[in-house]
């Protein structure tokens, strides 16, 4: 599903990623770990096409990102679901509207939204909060909104950047259980985290980074 071949990325003089090579198979759930500034988020940003690698090749679902035209990047991103540490929900939209916006982006007819939104909100346990605004939600609930928005477009690949970074253990665990459930349904998941409790409880393949280098 995802292939990195000798990928290097620099931010000016700072080396963010150095000759990183790894593969993630379809349906796999992997953790990307390492201290802050090790290059975890850089990997996810490269996969999302937010920036281009300085050298090396990145292939996602058979597509070499370097060959994707800038105009086609949005279409490419629509196939990837992303969950962020800071949730990135739209503050002036309700839970339902936050999820619906992803369907609007992919151009799904409005008549088909309601059923899909209710289904995915049930999956993440937010069906009772459907009409609430982000300001009325807890951190865990906001992360579920972010997850629901990522899932509703039925992505092939789910990227999660420290999704439990701002949450307590109990909430983090409940979020992780949803990720597990999604993975069992066949979704490929790449999650950046440095939460040791999660790594201990959920035994998955780990890509560990130190100063931009994959160490294990």
């Amino acid at each position: 599903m995802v292939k990195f071949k000798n990928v290097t990325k620099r931010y000016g003089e700072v080396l963010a990623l150095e000759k990183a090579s790894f593969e993630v198979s379809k349906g796999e759930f992997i953790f990307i770990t390492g201290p802050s500034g090790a290059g975890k988020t850089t990997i996810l940003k490269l996969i999302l096409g937010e920036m281009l690698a300085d050298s090396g090749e990145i292939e996602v679902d058979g597509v070499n990102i370097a060959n994707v035209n800038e105009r086609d990047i949005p279409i490419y991103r629509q196939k990837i679901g992303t969950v962020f540490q800071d949730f990135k929900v739209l503050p002036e939209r309700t839970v339902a509207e936050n999820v619906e916006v992803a369907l609007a982006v992919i151009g799904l007819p409005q008549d088909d939204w309601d059923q899909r939104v209710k289904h995915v909100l049930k999956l993440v346990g937010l069906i009772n909060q459907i009409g609430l605004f982000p300001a009325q939600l807890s951190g865990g609930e906001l992360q579920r909104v972010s997850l629901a928005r990522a899932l509703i477009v039925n992505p092939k690949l789910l990227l999660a950047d420290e999704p439990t970074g701002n949450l307590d253990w109990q909430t983090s665990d409940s979020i992780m259980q949803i990720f597990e459930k999604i993975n069992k349904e066949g979704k490929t998941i790449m999650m950046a985290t440095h939460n040791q409790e999660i790594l201990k409880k959920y035994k998955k393949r780990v890509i560990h980074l130190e100063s931009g280098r994959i160490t294990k």
Partner: protein
Amino acid sequence: MSIHFKTAKDYIKRSPFQTLAAVFVLTLTFFVATLVSILTYSSSKVLRYFETRPQVIAFLKDGVSTEVVVALQDRLLADVRIKEVKYVSKEDALSIYKKATSDNPLLGELVSPTIFPASLEFSVKNLSFAQAVIDEVKAENIVDSVGFTAALGGESELKNVVGRLRTITAYVRIGGAIFTGILAMASFMVILFTISMRMTTRRDEVEILNLIGATKKFIRGPIIIESLIYAGGGVLIGWTVAFIAVLYSAPGVLSYFGEIPVLPKNTFDLLSVFGIILGFEIIFGFLLAYSGSVIAISRVKKAR
């Protein structure tokens, strides 16, 4: 309702004063633009009226037979440069004279029809044809002399009147265009400023939309719709207020100008004129709003 319309509506609801400011400036612009358009129309009509009044009088020699006069009249009527040819007999000339001197009947009693020559009065479709037509008519055997611009009392005076009208018309057009242009520029700047502010406050939202794969068109949609709503509102309110003002003042204006058709006298023609103005204003307003919002959006482009 489409998500773009709903989003645009929400933006407008969230910042009512910004919306009011934008719509107010656009309303003022299109109110003035409508009035300037009507003034331009009216001044053109006044100019055209004076340009096409009977301007040439061919005084006929005495004793000319009716057949010969009719033949010349027909020839003049067939000339594409000439319009409204009218035969004025000696008797007609006398009655015109008597009417003109009605405040002093003695003057009318002292003259007989024989001293007034019969004449053919006509106007040229464009003043530039006048000299050539006069020369041709002068060459006719039955024509004794040709007077120009008798209706206004002399050649030089009509030229002056028409010249002055042309100058006034040009001033109305140029002045109106400059004033409307300044207001249009102010409207453009207000749209640019409003949409730039909107883009600044929406920066996070744009970033989120970018990350979930929204196309540029999707992101721009609600913002462009918002500016089109401003423009649509400004055009409709500005045009309507100007239309009501013109309708209200029309009877007084029409009676003041008398036979000069400064405004269409029937409702359908008046509505047609205003309809055309509205059509142009909608196109111009939407172009103004679209270009303003696209420029504002392009300022916050994010490099990959």
